[in-house]
Protein backbone atom coordinates (compact mmCIF):
# COMPACT_ATOMS: atom_id res chain seq x y z
CA UNK A 1 0.00 0.00 0.00
CA UNK A 2 1.41 3.37 -0.95
CA UNK A 3 0.60 6.36 1.11
CA UNK A 4 0.64 9.72 -0.51
CA UNK A 5 1.31 12.47 1.91
CA UNK A 6 1.52 16.04 0.80
CA UNK A 7 3.05 18.26 3.38
CA UNK A 8 2.27 21.87 2.81
CA UNK A 9 4.45 24.59 4.16
CA UNK A 10 2.39 27.65 3.50
CA UNK A 11 -1.19 26.58 3.00
CA UNK A 12 -2.61 25.47 6.29
CA UNK A 13 -5.91 24.17 4.87
CA UNK A 14 -4.37 21.81 2.34
CA UNK A 15 -5.37 18.21 2.89
CA UNK A 16 -3.53 15.10 1.99
CA UNK A 17 -5.03 12.29 -0.04
CA UNK A 18 -5.19 8.90 1.46
CA UNK A 19 -4.98 5.67 -0.47
CA UNK A 20 -7.35 3.12 0.96
CA UNK A 21 -7.79 -0.48 0.05
CA UNK A 22 -11.25 -1.97 0.22
CA UNK A 23 -10.84 -5.70 0.08
CA UNK A 24 -9.78 -8.15 -1.13
CA UNK A 25 -11.18 -9.50 2.12
CA UNK A 26 -14.13 -7.28 2.82
CA UNK A 27 -17.67 -8.48 3.36
CA UNK A 28 -19.16 -5.89 1.04
CA UNK A 29 -17.16 -7.10 -1.92
CA UNK A 30 -18.99 -10.45 -2.11
CA UNK A 31 -15.70 -12.23 -2.14
CA UNK A 32 -12.36 -10.99 -3.23
CA UNK A 33 -12.75 -7.83 -5.26
CA UNK A 34 -10.22 -5.19 -4.29
CA UNK A 35 -10.82 -1.51 -4.75
CA UNK A 36 -7.95 0.91 -4.53
CA UNK A 37 -9.44 4.22 -3.52
CA UNK A 38 -7.84 7.61 -3.24
CA UNK A 39 -9.73 9.58 -0.65
CA UNK A 40 -9.87 13.24 0.09
CA UNK A 41 -11.46 13.20 3.49
CA UNK A 42 -14.77 11.40 3.06
CA UNK A 43 -14.83 11.86 -0.68
CA UNK A 44 -13.55 9.38 -3.20
CA UNK A 45 -11.13 10.98 -5.61
CA UNK A 46 -10.43 7.97 -7.75
CA UNK A 47 -11.15 4.31 -7.73
CA UNK A 48 -9.36 1.43 -9.34
CA UNK A 49 -10.95 -2.01 -9.20
CA UNK A 50 -8.21 -4.60 -8.97
CA UNK A 51 -9.45 -7.95 -10.13
CA UNK A 52 -7.96 -11.38 -10.33
CA UNK A 53 -7.81 -12.63 -6.75
CA UNK A 54 -10.12 -15.47 -7.68
CA UNK A 55 -8.73 -16.17 -11.11
CA UNK A 56 -9.11 -19.88 -11.68
CA UNK A 57 -7.98 -20.00 -15.28
CA UNK A 58 -11.32 -21.21 -16.56
CA UNK A 59 -10.51 -20.34 -20.15
CA UNK A 60 -7.31 -22.35 -20.09
CA UNK A 61 -9.04 -25.26 -18.40
CA UNK A 62 -11.67 -25.27 -21.15
CA UNK A 63 -8.91 -26.12 -23.61
CA UNK A 64 -8.18 -29.37 -21.83
CA UNK A 65 -11.76 -30.52 -21.30
CA UNK A 66 -14.22 -32.15 -23.65
CA UNK A 67 -17.56 -30.52 -24.29
CA UNK A 68 -19.37 -32.33 -21.52
CA UNK A 69 -16.65 -31.51 -19.00
CA UNK A 70 -16.69 -27.86 -20.06
CA UNK A 71 -20.28 -27.59 -18.87
CA UNK A 72 -19.11 -28.49 -15.36
CA UNK A 73 -16.60 -25.67 -15.37
CA UNK A 74 -18.74 -23.17 -17.22
CA UNK A 75 -21.57 -23.25 -14.74
CA UNK A 76 -19.15 -22.25 -12.00
CA UNK A 77 -17.78 -18.87 -13.01
CA UNK A 78 -21.01 -17.11 -12.09
CA UNK A 79 -22.27 -19.47 -9.46
CA UNK A 80 -25.62 -17.73 -9.21
CA UNK A 81 -26.60 -18.29 -12.82
CA UNK A 82 -25.28 -21.75 -13.53
CA UNK A 83 -28.01 -22.76 -15.94
CA UNK A 84 -27.55 -19.68 -18.11
CA UNK A 85 -23.80 -20.21 -18.17
CA UNK A 86 -24.17 -23.79 -19.33
CA UNK A 87 -26.57 -22.64 -21.97
CA UNK A 88 -24.04 -20.42 -23.74
CA UNK A 89 -21.55 -23.26 -24.03
CA UNK A 90 -23.99 -25.75 -25.48
CA UNK A 91 -25.49 -23.16 -27.84
CA UNK A 92 -22.02 -22.44 -29.22
CA UNK A 93 -21.17 -26.11 -29.69
CA UNK A 94 -24.57 -26.90 -31.20
CA UNK A 95 -24.17 -24.06 -33.67
CA UNK A 96 -20.76 -25.30 -34.78
CA UNK A 97 -22.02 -28.87 -35.10
CA UNK A 98 -25.21 -27.75 -36.84
CA UNK A 99 -27.35 -29.65 -34.37
CA UNK A 100 -31.08 -29.19 -34.27
CA UNK A 101 -32.29 -29.24 -30.67
CA UNK A 102 -35.71 -30.88 -30.11
CA UNK A 103 -38.49 -28.39 -29.53
CA UNK A 104 -39.35 -29.76 -26.12
CA UNK A 105 -35.76 -29.25 -24.98
CA UNK A 106 -35.77 -25.68 -26.28
CA UNK A 107 -38.85 -24.75 -24.26
CA UNK A 108 -37.65 -26.58 -21.16
CA UNK A 109 -34.33 -24.79 -21.40
CA UNK A 110 -36.07 -21.44 -21.69
CA UNK A 111 -38.22 -22.20 -18.64
CA UNK A 112 -35.23 -23.29 -16.59
CA UNK A 113 -33.17 -20.31 -17.69
CA UNK A 114 -35.91 -17.97 -16.51
CA UNK A 115 -36.25 -19.81 -13.20
CA UNK A 116 -32.50 -19.47 -12.76
CA UNK A 117 -32.80 -15.75 -13.47
CA UNK A 118 -35.38 -15.42 -10.70
CA UNK A 119 -33.08 -17.32 -8.33
CA UNK A 120 -30.17 -15.07 -9.16
CA UNK A 121 -32.17 -11.88 -8.76
CA UNK A 122 -33.68 -13.02 -5.48
CA UNK A 123 -30.19 -13.52 -4.11
CA UNK A 124 -29.31 -9.89 -4.84
CA UNK A 125 -32.70 -8.61 -3.74
CA UNK A 126 -31.93 -10.19 -0.38
CA UNK A 127 -28.26 -9.35 -0.10
CA UNK A 128 -28.35 -5.78 -1.34
CA UNK A 129 -30.64 -4.43 1.42
CA UNK A 130 -28.60 -6.49 3.88
CA UNK A 131 -25.46 -4.67 2.84
CA UNK A 132 -26.97 -1.33 3.64
CA UNK A 133 -28.49 -2.40 6.89
CA UNK A 134 -31.84 -4.07 6.27
CA UNK A 135 -31.53 -7.68 7.33
CA UNK A 136 -35.16 -8.80 6.94
CA UNK A 137 -35.51 -8.89 3.12
CA UNK A 138 -32.87 -11.63 3.09
CA UNK A 139 -35.23 -14.02 4.83
CA UNK A 140 -38.06 -13.37 2.42
CA UNK A 141 -35.79 -13.65 -0.59
CA UNK A 142 -34.35 -16.92 0.64
CA UNK A 143 -37.76 -18.36 1.35
CA UNK A 144 -38.65 -17.83 -2.32
CA UNK A 145 -35.28 -19.12 -3.44
CA UNK A 146 -35.84 -22.30 -1.48
CA UNK A 147 -39.19 -22.88 -3.19
CA UNK A 148 -37.65 -22.54 -6.63
CA UNK A 149 -34.50 -24.42 -5.78
CA UNK A 150 -36.60 -27.41 -4.82
CA UNK A 151 -38.06 -27.37 -8.33
CA UNK A 152 -34.65 -27.09 -9.95
CA UNK A 153 -33.28 -29.82 -7.73
CA UNK A 154 -36.08 -32.18 -8.59
CA UNK A 155 -35.33 -31.87 -12.30
CA UNK A 156 -31.55 -31.65 -12.30
CA UNK A 157 -30.41 -32.98 -8.93
CA UNK A 158 -28.45 -29.82 -8.18
CA UNK A 159 -29.33 -26.73 -6.24
CA UNK A 160 -26.71 -24.41 -7.69
CA UNK A 161 -24.63 -26.22 -10.28
CA UNK A 162 -27.38 -27.85 -12.25
CA UNK A 163 -25.29 -29.59 -14.89
CA UNK A 164 -28.53 -30.22 -16.75
CA UNK A 165 -27.59 -29.00 -20.24
CA UNK A 166 -25.93 -31.28 -22.71
CA UNK A 167 -24.85 -30.68 -26.26
CA UNK A 168 -28.04 -31.33 -28.20
CA UNK A 169 -30.54 -30.83 -25.43
CA UNK A 170 -30.92 -31.65 -21.79
CA UNK A 171 -29.45 -34.42 -19.68
CA UNK A 172 -32.73 -36.24 -19.26
CA UNK A 173 -36.45 -35.84 -19.27
CA UNK A 174 -38.02 -34.06 -16.30
CA UNK A 175 -39.86 -36.26 -13.77
CA UNK A 176 -43.56 -36.90 -14.22
CA UNK A 177 -45.62 -34.09 -12.73
CA UNK A 178 -42.65 -31.77 -12.57
CA UNK A 179 -44.19 -29.09 -14.78
CA UNK A 180 -47.21 -28.99 -12.49
CA UNK A 181 -45.08 -28.65 -9.38
CA UNK A 182 -42.92 -26.03 -11.07
CA UNK A 183 -46.04 -24.07 -11.93
CA UNK A 184 -47.27 -24.31 -8.34
CA UNK A 185 -43.90 -23.06 -7.10
CA UNK A 186 -44.02 -20.13 -9.51
CA UNK A 187 -47.54 -19.26 -8.35
CA UNK A 188 -46.42 -19.42 -4.76
CA UNK A 189 -43.43 -17.18 -5.36
CA UNK A 190 -45.56 -14.73 -7.32
CA UNK A 191 -48.10 -14.65 -4.53
CA UNK A 192 -45.44 -13.97 -1.88
CA UNK A 193 -43.30 -11.54 -3.88
CA UNK A 194 -45.36 -8.55 -2.64
CA UNK A 195 -43.94 -9.28 0.83
CA UNK A 196 -40.42 -8.60 -0.36
CA UNK A 197 -41.64 -5.75 -2.50
CA UNK A 198 -43.59 -4.03 0.30
CA UNK A 199 -40.92 -4.43 2.90
CA UNK A 200 -38.14 -2.69 1.03
CA UNK A 201 -38.98 -1.00 -2.28
CA UNK A 202 -40.55 2.13 -0.83
CA UNK A 203 -38.85 1.99 2.54
CA UNK A 204 -37.79 5.54 3.44
CA UNK A 205 -34.41 4.55 4.86
CA UNK A 206 -33.64 2.38 1.89
CA UNK A 207 -34.63 5.15 -0.50
CA UNK A 208 -32.56 7.70 1.36
CA UNK A 209 -29.53 5.48 0.96
CA UNK A 210 -30.06 4.66 -2.71
CA UNK A 211 -31.96 7.46 -4.45
CA UNK A 212 -29.67 9.66 -6.51
CA UNK A 213 -26.65 7.74 -5.27
CA UNK A 214 -24.16 6.32 -7.76
CA UNK A 215 -25.73 7.59 -10.94
CA UNK A 216 -24.43 5.81 -14.02
CA UNK A 217 -25.20 7.66 -17.23
CA UNK A 218 -26.30 5.67 -20.28
CA UNK A 219 -23.24 6.89 -22.17
CA UNK A 220 -20.90 5.64 -19.44
CA UNK A 221 -22.75 2.36 -19.19
CA UNK A 222 -22.39 1.85 -22.93
CA UNK A 223 -18.76 2.93 -22.92
CA UNK A 224 -17.84 0.34 -20.32
CA UNK A 225 -19.87 -2.37 -22.01
CA UNK A 226 -22.16 -2.68 -19.04
CA UNK A 227 -25.21 -4.82 -19.60
CA UNK A 228 -28.07 -6.47 -17.79
CA UNK A 229 -30.03 -4.78 -15.02
CA UNK A 230 -27.14 -2.38 -14.33
CA UNK A 231 -27.26 -0.95 -17.85
CA UNK A 232 -31.03 -1.09 -18.16
CA UNK A 233 -31.40 0.97 -14.99
CA UNK A 234 -29.47 3.72 -16.78
CA UNK A 235 -31.91 3.62 -19.66
CA UNK A 236 -29.82 1.45 -21.95
CA UNK A 237 -32.69 -0.48 -23.46
CA UNK A 238 -30.86 -3.60 -24.52
CA UNK A 239 -31.88 -7.15 -23.84
CA UNK A 240 -30.68 -10.02 -25.98
CA UNK A 241 -33.83 -11.98 -25.30
CA UNK A 242 -35.73 -9.40 -27.29
CA UNK A 243 -33.05 -7.94 -29.54
CA UNK A 244 -31.35 -11.12 -30.67
CA UNK A 245 -33.60 -13.94 -29.52
CA UNK A 246 -32.07 -17.32 -28.81
CA UNK A 247 -33.87 -20.44 -27.54
CA UNK A 248 -37.62 -19.84 -27.65
CA UNK A 249 -37.50 -16.15 -26.77
CA UNK A 250 -38.37 -15.23 -30.35
CA UNK A 251 -41.83 -16.68 -29.84
CA UNK A 252 -42.30 -15.05 -26.47
CA UNK A 253 -43.17 -11.50 -25.75
CA UNK A 254 -40.29 -10.37 -23.54
CA UNK A 255 -41.04 -7.12 -21.71
CA UNK A 256 -37.76 -5.35 -20.98
CA UNK A 257 -37.65 -3.63 -17.61
CA UNK A 258 -35.85 -0.32 -17.81
CA UNK A 259 -35.39 2.77 -15.68
CA UNK A 260 -33.88 6.09 -16.61
CA UNK A 261 -32.41 7.49 -13.41
CA UNK A 262 -29.44 5.11 -13.29
CA UNK A 263 -29.02 5.33 -9.53
CA UNK A 264 -28.79 2.50 -6.99
CA UNK A 265 -32.53 2.45 -6.45
CA UNK A 266 -33.19 2.17 -10.18
CA UNK A 267 -30.82 -0.78 -10.41
CA UNK A 268 -32.59 -2.44 -7.51
CA UNK A 269 -36.01 -1.78 -9.01
CA UNK A 270 -34.94 -3.16 -12.38
CA UNK A 271 -34.04 -6.41 -10.71
CA UNK A 272 -37.19 -6.52 -8.63
CA UNK A 273 -39.48 -5.96 -11.59
CA UNK A 274 -37.51 -8.40 -13.68
CA UNK A 275 -38.45 -11.13 -11.21
CA UNK A 276 -42.13 -10.71 -12.06
CA UNK A 277 -41.35 -10.74 -15.78
CA UNK A 278 -39.24 -13.87 -15.50
CA UNK A 279 -41.89 -15.67 -13.47
CA UNK A 280 -44.43 -14.94 -16.21
CA UNK A 281 -42.01 -16.07 -18.91
CA UNK A 282 -41.22 -19.30 -17.08
CA UNK A 283 -44.92 -19.97 -16.69
CA UNK A 284 -45.54 -19.38 -20.39
CA UNK A 285 -42.70 -21.75 -21.26
CA UNK A 286 -44.02 -24.48 -18.96
CA UNK A 287 -47.43 -24.19 -20.60
CA UNK A 288 -45.78 -24.79 -23.95
CA UNK A 289 -43.69 -27.68 -22.61
CA UNK A 290 -46.88 -29.48 -21.66
CA UNK A 291 -48.17 -29.25 -25.23
CA UNK A 292 -45.03 -30.59 -26.84
CA UNK A 293 -44.09 -34.22 -26.71
CA UNK A 294 -40.93 -35.80 -27.91
CA UNK A 295 -37.34 -36.26 -26.88
CA UNK A 296 -35.31 -33.70 -24.95
CA UNK A 297 -31.96 -34.58 -26.47
CA UNK A 298 -30.46 -35.93 -29.64
CA UNK A 299 -28.36 -39.03 -30.05
CA UNK A 300 -24.75 -38.02 -30.15
CA UNK A 301 -21.68 -39.91 -31.30
CA UNK A 302 -19.54 -41.41 -28.53
CA UNK A 303 -16.97 -38.69 -29.00
CA UNK A 304 -18.43 -35.24 -29.53
CA UNK A 305 -16.25 -33.14 -31.78
CA UNK A 306 -17.08 -29.65 -32.92
CA UNK A 307 -16.04 -29.22 -36.55
CA UNK A 308 -13.34 -26.73 -37.43
CA UNK A 309 -14.55 -23.18 -37.22
CA UNK A 310 -15.44 -20.48 -34.77
CA UNK A 311 -18.59 -18.98 -33.39
CA UNK A 312 -19.69 -16.53 -30.76
CA UNK A 313 -22.71 -17.39 -28.68
CA UNK A 314 -24.01 -14.78 -26.32
CA UNK A 315 -26.90 -15.00 -23.95
CA UNK A 316 -28.72 -12.60 -21.69
CA UNK A 317 -27.57 -13.89 -18.33
CA UNK A 318 -29.20 -12.61 -15.15
CA UNK A 319 -26.30 -10.22 -14.61
CA UNK A 320 -25.91 -9.16 -18.23
CA UNK A 321 -24.43 -10.39 -21.45
CA UNK A 322 -22.46 -13.57 -21.19
CA UNK A 323 -20.64 -14.71 -24.29
CA UNK A 324 -18.48 -17.60 -25.36
CA UNK A 325 -16.21 -17.28 -28.34
CA UNK A 326 -15.47 -20.82 -29.36
CA UNK A 327 -12.67 -21.66 -31.74
CA UNK A 328 -12.50 -25.30 -32.70
CA UNK A 329 -9.90 -27.14 -34.74
CA UNK A 330 -12.09 -30.18 -34.98
CA UNK A 331 -10.89 -31.81 -31.78
CA UNK A 332 -12.92 -33.08 -28.87
CA UNK A 333 -11.75 -30.05 -26.92
CA UNK A 334 -11.96 -26.44 -28.06
CA UNK A 335 -8.79 -24.87 -29.32
CA UNK A 336 -9.74 -21.71 -27.51
CA UNK A 337 -12.83 -20.64 -25.67
CA UNK A 338 -12.98 -17.00 -24.73
CA UNK A 339 -15.34 -16.05 -22.01
CA UNK A 340 -17.05 -12.67 -21.90
CA UNK A 341 -18.71 -12.15 -18.58
CA UNK A 342 -21.23 -9.60 -17.47
CA UNK A 343 -19.73 -8.76 -14.08
CA UNK A 344 -16.30 -8.05 -15.52
CA UNK A 345 -17.63 -5.25 -17.71
CA UNK A 346 -20.07 -3.95 -15.10
CA UNK A 347 -17.44 -3.66 -12.40
CA UNK A 348 -15.18 -1.59 -14.64
CA UNK A 349 -17.83 1.13 -14.56
CA UNK A 350 -16.93 1.68 -10.89
CA UNK A 351 -13.91 3.65 -12.09
CA UNK A 352 -16.16 6.49 -13.18
CA UNK A 353 -19.05 5.77 -10.87
CA UNK A 354 -17.22 6.13 -7.58
CA UNK A 355 -15.13 9.31 -7.89
CA UNK A 356 -17.03 12.14 -6.27
CA UNK A 357 -19.09 9.92 -4.01
CA UNK A 358 -18.80 9.63 -0.25
CA UNK A 359 -17.29 6.66 1.54
CA UNK A 360 -20.57 5.84 3.33
CA UNK A 361 -22.25 5.55 -0.10
CA UNK A 362 -19.53 3.26 -1.34
CA UNK A 363 -21.12 0.08 -0.06
CA UNK A 364 -24.51 1.09 -1.44
CA UNK A 365 -23.02 1.63 -4.88
CA UNK A 366 -20.82 -1.45 -4.79
CA UNK A 367 -23.72 -3.67 -3.81
CA UNK A 368 -25.99 -2.23 -6.47
CA UNK A 369 -23.58 -3.23 -9.24
CA UNK A 370 -24.71 -6.83 -8.70
CA UNK A 371 -21.56 -8.71 -9.50
CA UNK A 372 -20.26 -12.14 -8.70
CA UNK A 373 -16.52 -12.21 -8.12
CA UNK A 374 -16.13 -15.56 -9.87
CA UNK A 375 -17.73 -13.96 -12.90
CA UNK A 376 -15.19 -11.13 -12.84
CA UNK A 377 -12.11 -13.23 -12.31
CA UNK A 378 -13.18 -16.31 -14.26
Amino acid at each position, binding site marked *: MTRELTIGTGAGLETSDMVLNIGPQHPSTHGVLRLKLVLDGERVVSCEPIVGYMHRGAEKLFEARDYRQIIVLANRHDWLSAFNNELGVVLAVERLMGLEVPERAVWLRTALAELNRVLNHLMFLGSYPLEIGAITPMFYAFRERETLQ*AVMEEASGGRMHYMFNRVGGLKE*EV*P*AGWTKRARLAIDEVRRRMPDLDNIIRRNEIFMARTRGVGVLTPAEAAAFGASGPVARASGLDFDLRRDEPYLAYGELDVPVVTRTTGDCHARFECMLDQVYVSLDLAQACLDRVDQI*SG*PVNVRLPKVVKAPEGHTYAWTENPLGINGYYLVSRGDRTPWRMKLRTASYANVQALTTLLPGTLVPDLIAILGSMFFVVGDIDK
Partner: protein
Amino acid sequence: MNGVPGGGLAKGLAVTLKTMTKRAHTHQYPDVEPDLPPRSRGVIALLEENCTVCMLCARECPDWCIYIDSHKEEVVVPGAARPRQRNMLDRFAIDFSLCMYCGICIEACPFDALYWSPEFEYSEYDIRDLLHEKERLGEWMPTVPAPPAHDPNGEPAKEETSAAKKAAPPTPPAPSI
Protein backbone atom coordinates in the same frame (compact mmCIF):
# COMPACT_ATOMS: atom_id res chain seq x y z
CA MET B 1 -40.72 10.58 -2.10
CA ASN B 2 -44.37 9.94 -2.65
CA GLY B 3 -47.26 9.24 -0.34
CA VAL B 4 -47.47 9.76 3.38
CA PRO B 5 -44.16 10.25 5.17
CA GLY B 6 -43.21 6.98 6.76
CA GLY B 7 -45.64 5.12 4.54
CA GLY B 8 -42.91 2.88 3.21
CA LEU B 9 -41.84 1.92 6.71
CA ALA B 10 -45.43 1.22 7.73
CA LYS B 11 -45.92 -0.99 4.69
CA GLY B 12 -42.85 -2.97 5.64
CA LEU B 13 -43.98 -3.34 9.21
CA ALA B 14 -47.35 -4.58 7.96
CA VAL B 15 -45.53 -7.41 6.20
CA THR B 16 -43.68 -8.19 9.41
CA LEU B 17 -46.95 -8.27 11.32
CA LYS B 18 -48.53 -10.52 8.72
CA THR B 19 -45.57 -12.89 8.89
CA MET B 20 -45.74 -12.97 12.68
CA THR B 21 -49.13 -14.62 12.49
CA LYS B 22 -47.82 -17.42 10.32
CA ARG B 23 -45.80 -20.49 11.10
CA ALA B 24 -42.07 -20.32 10.59
CA HIS B 25 -40.85 -21.47 7.22
CA THR B 26 -37.70 -23.13 8.53
CA HIS B 27 -37.21 -26.83 9.13
CA GLN B 28 -35.33 -27.81 12.26
CA TYR B 29 -32.74 -29.76 10.32
CA PRO B 30 -31.04 -32.25 12.63
CA ASP B 31 -34.43 -33.15 14.10
CA VAL B 32 -36.34 -33.03 10.84
CA GLU B 33 -34.79 -34.79 7.87
CA PRO B 34 -34.91 -32.78 4.65
CA ASP B 35 -37.15 -34.18 1.98
CA LEU B 36 -34.80 -34.61 -0.96
CA PRO B 37 -35.87 -35.59 -4.48
CA PRO B 38 -34.52 -38.88 -5.87
CA ARG B 39 -32.31 -37.09 -8.40
CA SER B 40 -30.58 -35.10 -5.66
CA ARG B 41 -26.83 -35.31 -6.05
CA GLY B 42 -25.64 -36.09 -2.55
CA VAL B 43 -23.04 -38.80 -2.81
CA ILE B 44 -21.87 -41.33 -5.36
CA ALA B 45 -22.59 -44.94 -4.46
CA LEU B 46 -20.76 -47.89 -5.98
CA LEU B 47 -22.27 -51.25 -6.87
CA GLU B 48 -19.06 -53.21 -6.89
CA GLU B 49 -20.38 -56.31 -8.64
CA ASN B 50 -21.23 -54.29 -11.73
CA CYS B 51 -17.81 -52.72 -12.08
CA THR B 52 -15.66 -54.23 -14.81
CA VAL B 53 -12.67 -51.92 -14.26
CA CYS B 54 -13.14 -50.31 -17.67
CA MET B 55 -11.80 -47.04 -16.22
CA LEU B 56 -14.23 -44.92 -18.22
CA CYS B 57 -15.40 -43.04 -15.13
CA ALA B 58 -11.86 -42.26 -14.03
CA ARG B 59 -10.98 -41.01 -17.51
CA GLU B 60 -14.09 -38.92 -17.98
CA CYS B 61 -13.92 -37.26 -14.57
CA PRO B 62 -13.16 -33.56 -15.12
CA ASP B 63 -10.78 -33.39 -12.18
CA TRP B 64 -9.65 -36.99 -12.01
CA CYS B 65 -10.76 -37.71 -8.48
CA ILE B 66 -11.51 -41.40 -9.02
CA TYR B 67 -8.74 -43.87 -8.23
CA ILE B 68 -8.96 -47.41 -9.54
CA ASP B 69 -6.54 -50.30 -9.08
CA SER B 70 -7.05 -53.76 -10.44
CA HIS B 71 -5.31 -57.00 -11.30
CA LYS B 72 -6.02 -59.74 -13.79
CA GLU B 73 -7.10 -63.17 -12.74
CA GLU B 74 -7.51 -66.31 -14.73
CA VAL B 75 -10.91 -67.87 -14.52
CA VAL B 76 -11.40 -71.41 -15.68
CA VAL B 77 -14.71 -71.64 -17.46
CA PRO B 78 -15.94 -75.20 -17.80
CA GLY B 79 -16.31 -76.10 -21.45
CA ALA B 80 -13.98 -73.38 -22.68
CA ALA B 81 -10.71 -74.36 -24.29
CA ARG B 82 -8.59 -71.88 -22.40
CA PRO B 83 -8.99 -70.09 -19.08
CA ARG B 84 -10.37 -66.56 -19.42
CA GLN B 85 -8.77 -63.42 -18.07
CA ARG B 86 -10.87 -61.28 -15.81
CA ASN B 87 -10.26 -57.88 -14.29
CA MET B 88 -10.54 -57.90 -10.54
CA LEU B 89 -11.20 -54.61 -8.76
CA ASP B 90 -8.71 -53.97 -5.97
CA ARG B 91 -9.40 -50.40 -5.21
CA PHE B 92 -12.10 -47.94 -6.15
CA ALA B 93 -11.93 -44.63 -4.35
CA ILE B 94 -13.51 -41.26 -4.89
CA ASP B 95 -11.95 -38.18 -3.37
CA PHE B 96 -14.95 -36.12 -2.37
CA SER B 97 -12.76 -33.17 -1.51
CA LEU B 98 -12.06 -32.86 -5.24
CA CYS B 99 -15.34 -34.14 -6.64
CA MET B 100 -17.39 -31.42 -8.34
CA TYR B 101 -20.61 -33.43 -8.19
CA CYS B 102 -21.18 -33.21 -11.93
CA GLY B 103 -22.29 -36.79 -12.37
CA ILE B 104 -20.26 -37.45 -15.50
CA CYS B 105 -18.83 -40.68 -14.04
CA ILE B 106 -22.34 -41.98 -13.46
CA GLU B 107 -23.35 -41.02 -16.98
CA ALA B 108 -20.21 -42.54 -18.44
CA CYS B 109 -20.48 -45.87 -16.64
CA PRO B 110 -21.69 -48.41 -19.23
CA PHE B 111 -22.45 -51.10 -16.65
CA ASP B 112 -24.51 -49.17 -14.08
CA ALA B 113 -21.99 -49.52 -11.30
CA LEU B 114 -22.31 -45.94 -10.07
CA TYR B 115 -25.40 -44.23 -8.71
CA TRP B 116 -26.35 -40.92 -7.17
CA SER B 117 -27.70 -41.04 -3.64
CA PRO B 118 -29.26 -38.03 -1.90
CA GLU B 119 -27.30 -38.96 1.25
CA PHE B 120 -25.26 -35.93 2.32
CA GLU B 121 -24.22 -36.42 5.92
CA TYR B 122 -20.62 -37.41 5.47
CA SER B 123 -18.69 -34.32 6.43
CA GLU B 124 -15.32 -34.78 8.08
CA TYR B 125 -13.02 -32.75 10.27
CA ASP B 126 -10.03 -33.45 8.07
CA ILE B 127 -10.10 -32.96 4.31
CA ARG B 128 -8.07 -36.14 3.83
CA ASP B 129 -10.84 -38.18 5.38
CA LEU B 130 -13.08 -37.37 2.43
CA LEU B 131 -11.30 -39.94 0.27
CA HIS B 132 -13.75 -42.82 0.38
CA GLU B 133 -12.84 -46.37 -0.59
CA LYS B 134 -15.08 -48.92 -2.27
CA GLU B 135 -16.33 -50.36 1.01
CA ARG B 136 -17.68 -46.99 2.09
CA LEU B 137 -19.04 -46.23 -1.38
CA GLY B 138 -20.82 -49.57 -1.31
CA GLU B 139 -22.44 -48.74 2.01
CA TRP B 140 -24.33 -45.95 0.29
CA MET B 141 -25.89 -48.35 -2.23
CA PRO B 142 -28.97 -49.09 -0.08
CA THR B 143 -29.71 -45.35 0.10
CA VAL B 144 -30.04 -45.03 -3.66
CA PRO B 145 -33.68 -44.24 -4.44
CA ALA B 146 -35.61 -45.51 -7.44
CA PRO B 147 -35.45 -43.04 -10.31
CA PRO B 148 -38.57 -40.93 -10.81
CA ALA B 149 -40.85 -41.74 -13.72
CA HIS B 150 -40.38 -39.52 -16.74
CA ASP B 151 -42.92 -36.97 -17.84
CA PRO B 152 -45.42 -38.83 -20.06
CA ASN B 153 -44.98 -36.16 -22.74
CA GLY B 154 -41.29 -36.90 -23.04
CA GLU B 155 -39.48 -40.04 -23.99
CA PRO B 156 -39.42 -42.84 -21.43
CA ALA B 157 -36.13 -43.69 -19.77
CA LYS B 158 -33.65 -45.75 -21.76
CA GLU B 159 -33.85 -48.54 -19.21
CA GLU B 160 -37.62 -48.64 -19.57
CA THR B 161 -37.50 -48.93 -23.36
CA SER B 162 -34.92 -51.68 -23.33
CA ALA B 163 -36.79 -53.58 -20.62
CA ALA B 164 -40.00 -53.35 -22.63
CA LYS B 165 -38.17 -54.66 -25.68
CA LYS B 166 -36.84 -57.63 -23.75
CA ALA B 167 -40.22 -58.38 -22.24
CA ALA B 168 -42.02 -58.25 -25.58
CA PRO B 169 -42.50 -61.66 -27.23
CA PRO B 170 -40.00 -62.19 -30.01
CA THR B 171 -41.41 -61.20 -33.36
CA PRO B 172 -42.04 -64.25 -35.49
CA PRO B 173 -39.64 -64.54 -38.40
CA ALA B 174 -41.01 -63.28 -41.67
CA PRO B 175 -42.64 -66.15 -43.53
CA SER B 176 -40.45 -67.32 -46.33
CA ILE B 177 -42.08 -67.73 -49.66
